[in-house]
């Protein structure tokens, strides 16, 4: 099951709808990297609200999406991590250090603006 990617201004929103297989996740990574490059997006929001499990593979893939899109000039924010999933991630020691997180899509767009501004200032 592939993940719909919406373009809103210079932000891409990947909103995961249901449990993903490893292949789906890798496909999401490739598509996001390709779209960020082609559309010159400045930000990516990955909405994981629908995920009831995020294991080490999913987390590693999200990390590498963030790294790949950053190389192409876009910041990534992960939104909607469920309380139980957050507990499991912490138990696994997967704390997504260096990747911005937010409660939901709306908040994620706000955070993205802050992160992009901070990057602009740093340059």
């Amino acid at each position, binding site marked *: 099951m592939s993940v719909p990617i919406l373009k809103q201004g210079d932000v891409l929103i990947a909103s995961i709808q249901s449990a993903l297989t490893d292949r789906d996740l890798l496909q999401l990574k490739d598509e996001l990297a390709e779209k960020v490059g082609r559309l010159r997006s400045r930000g990516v929001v990955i909405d994981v609200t629908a995920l009831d499990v995020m294991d080490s593979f999913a987390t590693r893939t999200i990390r590498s999406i963030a790294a790949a899109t950053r190389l192409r000039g876009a910041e990534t924010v992960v*939104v909607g991590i469920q*309380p139980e999933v957050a*507990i499991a*991630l*912490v138990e696994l020691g997967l*704390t997504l250090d260096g990747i911005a*997180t937010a*409660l*939901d899509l709306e908040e994620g767009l706000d955070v993205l*603006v802050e992160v992009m501004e901070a990057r602009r200032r740093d340059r």
Partner: protein
Amino acid sequence: MADQATDAEAPFGPAGLFGPADLERRLRSGGVGPEDRAGIGEIKDEVLKHLDEHVAAFFEHLASFPEAQALLRRPDLMEEARRLERDHLVAMASGTYDRDYVEQRFRLGRLYNRAQLDVALFMGAFHAQMSSIGRRIMQRYAKDAVGGFARFSAFKKIAFVDLGIVVDAMMTEREGTIRRQQQAILELSTPALQVRERLLILPIIGLLDTFRAKQLTDGLLKAIRAHRAKVVVMDLTGVSTVDSKVANHLIQTVAAARLMGATVIVTGLSSDVAQSLVTLGVDLSRLNTIGDLQGGIEEAERILGPASPRIERRPAVG
């Protein structure tokens, strides 16, 4: 008989908690048959004739126990207890065992709980009362000991069913009280208070054990979601010591809150607790710590910015 204490408001013994089928089952397992009901009918007048004596036997038995003084010295409770005990015997002798009968038993159980009369003491007094009744019946049937014994046995069958109901009522009531107390303690000790939109304060008071620490994590993360909190001030002023497990849990809670998109500010860290965290290998620089609660709230306000800033703050994207 599962989950009797779910509704604290409902009186004990309504059909949902203790249905007619349950009573029927108890009477059956107590071996109460038609001939027993008939036997009880024959001694009914004998029991009622000496009612006051039998009620007195119950309280006389209690008088020698210091634990029962909480009941015996309270005139209001005693008046009610005497009345209920009288009704109790009248109902037992009446031969009609229905819903009213059960509810009356539950009232009795609740009263004894309120007076902190424990089950063993109650059972002793109940036995003294039965002996008093047995004595009178055997006197009445002095010339027909076998017949007297048969009738008293019938009465005792009901008495055993009765005892079971009262004891269950006492236990259920007590379990309900304990559960409510535990819940209240949990809620009192781990409330996440919303101070303003997007800001929660979590005062942690008292000893944290692993179980409470886990509750605290679950509760906080749910509160973050429910209140859409962006900043949480976790105040440890009321915490005097932490062990490695609890320290680890606090760190994990902070990390989990961050994954959900909330920033945790830790305040009120005493030097003792800070020292033990460091000794336990916690990297305090990874925690956003601020001296006191006031400072923590100010920092939170700074992160949140002025109220409702969203529309003004967001520059055009694209």
